[in-house]
């Protein structure tokens, strides 16, 4: 639901999003050294694979956005990671688009980068239970912010989208809840099994 396809947004929004995203990706690339590429890449592949799983919840199923978790684990490397993932997704599966790539990167990665960088040091030092709580709230917040940004991209593109955008925000609320819980339990798992995984961004 966060992958805006080609043909919906206006040119100014596309160009603005593209420029900002390019800067963010360049920043993220600068932060990772050549020797970190395999680690970042294979972890990104893990996140990418995860985002493709349709997790059944009751009668329907959800795809996780994973912005919060990626931000916590990858820090600012989230921008290049999300960039290649969205590119691949647009090309291979037709989710999202080419012209909207920049906007989509920002929508998913920016909340993750900001919130993830803020909470990663806390999580690194916390007990598994506390870490789970922090990560859960962070994950849910990231989904909410992504929803707001998707709505904003629509509203900025055309006044006609205004009302639709508002309704769309409401559809993110269940996803916030689910992703909050799953993200929290996930970090509690990682804290117990392989805390080194959280050392990178902290």
């Amino acid at each position, binding site marked *: 639901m966060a992958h805006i396809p080609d*043909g919906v947004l206006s040119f100014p929004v596309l160009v603005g999003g593209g420029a900002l995203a390019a800067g963010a990706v360049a920043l993220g690339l600068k932060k990772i050294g050549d020797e970190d590429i395999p680690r970042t890449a294979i*972890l*990104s592949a893990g996140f990418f694979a995860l985002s493709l799983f349709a997790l059944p*919840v009751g009668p329907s199923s959800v795809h996780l956005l994973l912005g919060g978790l990626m931000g916590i684990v990858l820090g600012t490397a989230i921008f290049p990671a999300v960039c290649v993932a969205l590119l*691949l997704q647009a090309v291979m599966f037709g989710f999202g688009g080419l012209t909207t790539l920049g906007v989509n990167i920002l929508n998913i990665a920016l909340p993750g980068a900001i919130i993830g960088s803020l909470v990663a040091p806390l999580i690194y030092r916390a007990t598994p239970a506390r870490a789970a709580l922090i990560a859960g709230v962070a994950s849910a917040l990231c989904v909410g912010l992504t929803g707001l940004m998707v709505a904003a991209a629509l509203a900025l593109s055309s006044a006609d989208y205004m009302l639709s955008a508002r309704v769309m925000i409401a559809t993110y609320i269940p996803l916030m809840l*689910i992703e909050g819980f799953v993200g929290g339990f996930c970090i509690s798992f990682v804290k117990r099994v392989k805390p080194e995984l959280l050392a990178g961004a902290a």
Partner: protein
Amino acid sequence: MSLLRATDTHEHFLARLDPRSRIISSLLAVLAAVAMTSLTGQIAMVVAALALAAIADVDWRAMLHRLAHVEGFMIVLLILLPLTMPGRALIALGPFALSDAGLMRAISIVLKVNAAVITTMALLATLEPVRLGRGLASLGLPARLMHLLLFLVRYQSLFREEGARLMEAMRARGFRPHANLRTFRAYGNFTGMLLVRSMERAERVEESMRCRGFSGKFPLRATRALSALDIAFTLLLALILTGIILLDRLA
């Protein structure tokens, strides 16, 4: 699932095109599709996209399957636009009314989105991801980003399979998803396990490579010059697109 069917396995002429030519062509086509303003132009773009898909000899069933998924995002817009945009009411449903302007807007979005998706699939989904990465790199994509892309391509399917087996292991022990905390905890474990495994897989693969004497980077193949076919294809496409844009602006 794979659209790779024809183009990269047989000696199709698209397969002989340089990835750069395919990438630039599809970017041009998608930009044109997005720029359409009139119904005539939008329909013309869909027709052009379908023609490209026919030339690329895509697997139509796989294509339909994917289009059905893509429409997911738009459903909300498609339902909401006619209901929320001001205009002449076509049909009244209690307190709601379907406006003509909203309906037109919805139709134009469907046409634009589909034209873009079909072109991308025809030209890029049929391109082997490794060649896509190399093509992008020779178009100026930073080398690090290309390495990220290549690793992602190689490992995402592996982790999807591992994830699928973990899901099977959960099902095999009687797990059934509900909307409750236990389900979320199981998913949290699943997510965490897949992440930990990707990390450990990264370590093991590195070890296995070192054990077999690997010490440097992946060799990068030199880029060859664009052929006449590459240039002709892209120019011809650009010409057709210009025609459609003119048609759109005149309509």
